[in-house]
């Protein structure tokens, strides 16, 4: 591609500095990039010098990427931060191209395979347009979504495309087309934002329902009625560090009160924003609590419901921006880091949860008779709430079985009915749903709760590890003026789940190492750990050592060059290849079976005034190739031959222009 219009790069860098919030850097780059053509002197940079600068920039880019990743709390944001500085990182290449004699950038600087082959210098390009595209993307990726950005992109784009219009086309038609494109772009951009909102609201939410950690706070889709095997992975999703006496038996992340067709819906209750004490301490309830547990987890997107022990009153070292608590007890992080490592203070009693509502007694009308019969069968229908809950729990433990496997012949349109009457076996969601509805039928307010069971102790980690398969559902019943847990699932479920492919030594080890790394990476600066400025003292010397190694290797390669010339085959001289390419571009390519002399002889004299010179050179080339005694094989003889070839090639290239 040819050179871009004047000041295109300067204008785009100015826009980048303005819109991306880097005015000083933008101004400096504008001066560098647009000032380079004003310098009268030009330097003769050879391909190796371009390659060296490109290598240095690549190393700098890699180090900057590592630093950004370590310092960033969000990987995606880290990538965008890196992208936003790309114009500054790549600017030296553009400046070098503009200050070079050739005014072009060799492709060997970008591709190692070309460096090994050492082909023609004509394999080059102008990187101005590519750089312009980088600047445009970097600006758009980091600038705020305003009308200014759209207009700037349109104007710069039009200016960049002006030289490429069709020859002979009227300027008025071009302007009309450009305006039409800008209008269509505006409409398309608006449509894309609307479409994304629609997709997020309808489609993605459906998949979030089945996620283990990032569960929705407003609904829980159960697997009641699903066929096959309830698949749960052994991947560690949570870690709980607590004294044995303070171990929370369960972590709760969702409370639901309305059941419909296999889905539990959360209560519609106002969310209370919790004001932080200091920067990362959150008080949910002022009552004193004695137990504490340190919990570590990944929260997808930095938002979602937080798995916390029952009766949590305070959260310390929680790296979040907005924390909300619902009246029914769910704790939500509306804005926070993806890796959370906090301490929950709790007492195991959900004293702060609000009183029951009429929805905590509602049951589906169709199921009422069956639920009544079940309560009577359990012998709990006439008992007081505490006893009734205990009797019901024992009933399910003794007469029902736990399983995650459902055969194909058990498909039924009324799975809960079948569970309570004929099957009498299922997974925790069946038991929790059934217990909740039966208690309600007996007049005891009850809710469906989801979360995790904390059971497995890891000697290596010195903590309790919670896996995806430890996800659990149980019931909370309003007994004696507070919400109390009623776990109707037979205790055998723990042994069954832990027996399922529990040996994951390699995966667990890697997960532990990654967990330790994340703790260090996201540690608060006052903790004395984390990638703070101190680590620059490690990275900078390492970078310097790498750079010194690269430059020393390149110096050694240069020193070795003359000695290796003799060992290289003449046929692969890049100068000869350049000559072949130049003549091929003029329509006189050499056949593989043609000798150089034979090929030169086929060139028409009237079209090639330099034919005689080419023929003379070809004869000396053949002598050098086949008859070493005929031409000096010393450095001088070979060098002169190669220089002449390059001069001839350049002369021929001038007739067609450099190869694109």
């Amino acid at each position, binding site marked *: *591609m040819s050179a871009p219009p004047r000041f295109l790069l300067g204008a785009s860098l100015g826009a980048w500095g303005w819109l991306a919030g880097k005015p000083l850097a933008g101004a400096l780059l504008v001066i560098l990039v647009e000032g380079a053509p004003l310098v009268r002197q030009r330097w003769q940079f050879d391909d190796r010098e371009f390659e060296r600068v490109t290598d240095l920039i690549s190393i700098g880019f890699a180090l900057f990427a590592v630093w950004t990743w370590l310092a960033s709390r969000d990987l*995606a944001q880290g990538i*965008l931060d890196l992208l936003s500085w790309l114009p500054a990182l790549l600017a030296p290449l553009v400046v070098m191209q503009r200050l070079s004699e050739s005014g072009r950038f060799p492709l060997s600087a970008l591709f190692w*395979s070309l460096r090994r082959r050492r*082909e023609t210098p004509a394999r080059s390009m102008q990187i101005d*347009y590519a750089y312009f*595209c980088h600047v*445009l*993307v970097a600006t*758009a*990726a980091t*600038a*705020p*979504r*305003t009308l200014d*950005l*759209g207009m700037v*992109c*349109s104007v710069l*784009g039009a200016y960049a*495309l002006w030289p*490429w*219009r*069709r*020859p*002979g*086309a*009227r300027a008025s*038609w*071009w302007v009309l*087309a*450009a305006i*039409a*494109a*800008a*209008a*269509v*772009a505006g409409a*398309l*951009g608006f449509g*894309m*934002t609307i479409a*994304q909102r629609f997709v997020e609201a309808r489609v993605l939410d459906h998949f979030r329902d089945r996620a283990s950690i990032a569960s929705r706070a407003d609904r829980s889709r159960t697997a009641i009625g699903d066929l096959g095997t309830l698949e749960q992975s052994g991947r560690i999703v949570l870690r709980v560090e607590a004294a044995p006496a303070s171990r929370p038996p369960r972590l709760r992340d969702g409370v639901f009160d309305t059941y419909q067709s296999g889905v539990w819906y959360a209560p519609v209750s106002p969310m209370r924003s919790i004001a932080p004490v200091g920067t990362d301490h959150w008080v949910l309830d002022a009552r004193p609590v004695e137990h504490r547990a340190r919990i570590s987890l990944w929260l997808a997107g930095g938002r979602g419901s937080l798995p916390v022990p029952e009766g949590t009153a305070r959260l310390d070292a929680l790296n979040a921006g907005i924390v909300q608590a619902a009246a029914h007890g769910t704790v939500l992080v509306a804005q926070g880091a993806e890796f959370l490592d906090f301490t929950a203070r709790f007492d195991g009693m959900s004293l702060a949860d609000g009183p029951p509502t009429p929805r905590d007694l509602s049951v589906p009308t169709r199921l009422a008779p069956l639920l009544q019969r079940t309560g009577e069968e359990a012998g709990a229908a006439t008992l007081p709430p505490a006893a009734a809950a205990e009797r019901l729990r024992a009933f399910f433990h003794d007469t029902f079985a736990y399983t995650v496997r459902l055969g194909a012949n058990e498909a039924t349109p009324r799975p809960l009915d079948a569970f309570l009457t004929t099957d009498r076996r299922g997974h925790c969601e069946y038991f929790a749903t059934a217990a909740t509805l039966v208690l309600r039928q007996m007049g005891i307010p009850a809710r469906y709760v989801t979360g995790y069971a904390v059971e497995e102790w890891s000697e290596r980690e010195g903590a309790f590890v919670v896996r995806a398969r430890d996800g659990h559902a149980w019931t909370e019943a309003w007994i004696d003026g507070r919400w109390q847990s009623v776990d109707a699932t037979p205790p055998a479920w723990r042994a069954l789940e832990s027996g399922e492919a529990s040996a994951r030594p390699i995966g667990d080890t890697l997960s532990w190492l990654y967990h330790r790394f994340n703790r260090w990476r996201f540690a608060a600066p006052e903790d004395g750990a984390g990638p703070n400025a101190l680590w620059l003292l490690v990275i900078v010397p390492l970078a310097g050592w790498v750079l010194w190694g690269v430059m020393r290797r390149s110096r050694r390669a240069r020193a070795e060059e003359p000695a290796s010339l003799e060992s290289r085959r003449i046929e*692969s001289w890049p100068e000869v*290849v350049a000559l072949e390419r130049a003549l091929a571009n003029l*329509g*006189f*390519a*050499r*056949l*593989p*079976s*043609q*000798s150089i*002399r*034979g090929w030169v*002889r*086929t060139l028409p004299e009237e079209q090639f005034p330099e034919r005689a010179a080419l023929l003379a050179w070809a004869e000396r080339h*053949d002598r050098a190739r*086949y008859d070493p005694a005929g031409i000096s094989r010393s450095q001088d003889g070979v060098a002169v031959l190669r220089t002449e070839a390059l001069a001839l090639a350049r002369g021929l290239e001038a007739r067609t222009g450099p190869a694109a």
Partner: protein
Amino acid sequence: MRLRLFVRAYRLSRWADRRFTPAGKTVLLLALVSGVFGLDTGRTAAYQVFALCAALVVVAAVSVVAWRPGVQVRRMLPEVATAGVPVRYELRVTSDRPLSGGFVVQDELSDRFPSARQFRQEVRMRDPASNAVDRRIGYPRWVALGAWLRGGTIAPVSVSLGTPSSEVRVDACLLPLRRGPVRFARTRLLRSDVLGLLRGAVVHPAAQSLWVLPPTHPIPELRFPGKRRHHRGGELGVPEVGDSQEFLQVRDYRPGDPLRRIHWGRSARTGRLVVKEMGEEFFARYGLVLDTFGGDADRDRFEAAVAVAASLARHVRTNDALLDLLFVEEHAVLAAAGRGPGSRMVLLRALAGVQPARTRSFATLADAVLAHASRLSACVHVLLEADAARAELVQRLAHRGVAQLVLTLRDPGPGFRVGAVPVHVVDAGDPARSLAGMPTEVR
């Protein structure tokens, strides 16, 4: 499966090259990159760049649809071409409405894709333009082989008209890559949209063929022995030129003369039947034997052999002698060149289309040569192999008094014993140099 993917990839890349200008490709690439970063419209504004690029492509696509002139194209090709030598020819484009501004004329050859067998046999594994990954995948090799099978390359010609015109003459250039028939398929007129991103195309089917002769190299003058043999029936000595009696040997028709000897043109002019008179002649007849066995396995060596044979057919000076070309494809072929300077074209045309023998054995060629040996004074062999079977042919011809010269593209093995017959090894990679140093005596 892999070849089907190659075909699709090739067609897609050709379509993209035709339809998108360099600026269009840049816009497309920018759309892709900005689309990746702009996937989450809530996070970045890169989707605006994507929207702008998409809008530009849409507007460009709409504007090229409207250009649909009705065109006719005539292609003025020469009679023959030579492999490796560019051929310039004229394209005459006429349109139903005046053409103006700039557009591109692209003449195209028929698409030909390598078969699985051809792809496997292609041994260009050390293509210097490919890296290790390309060599492993094989796509660049497949593309190069396809170009060779098509027979040539034609560069597009940019036309810029200052004033509108309904007829445009364009000079195109074909670079033949191989000998044999080169088939033209169509001519395309391409014009970019006003923004310069996309190209609209108008296609005119224009099937035509051009016969490409093999390349030839200079050879030293060969000294043939002065043996003349009796040839019953003779040969027509000179071409007919006008009404000059000096140049025609005719006589009145006598009953019993073969009808095929009647000279109809002279008979019409004179009003009586006259016949061409063939006299008894004594002249030398030389054979040029081309070995086509084993050429399937090594295309480069076979092509070099054909080039050597073509060089001999074109440049060898036989004075009054005739030159007979013998080779075997599906069956034995004999092509005879007369005495005139244009008569060698017969041999070159035959060599332009020769293919390796696949179903026969070398014995077929040997039998054909030996059957023709009684008419030959001398014979030049161009052999792909130098083994005992070929040596036996040479020896048997030598026993019959035929002077010979052997040019072989393989180093002679221990079984290749031909006595005093000169043998010269030709380097398949550089036949021109090898021919320059060949022996000049045929004995």
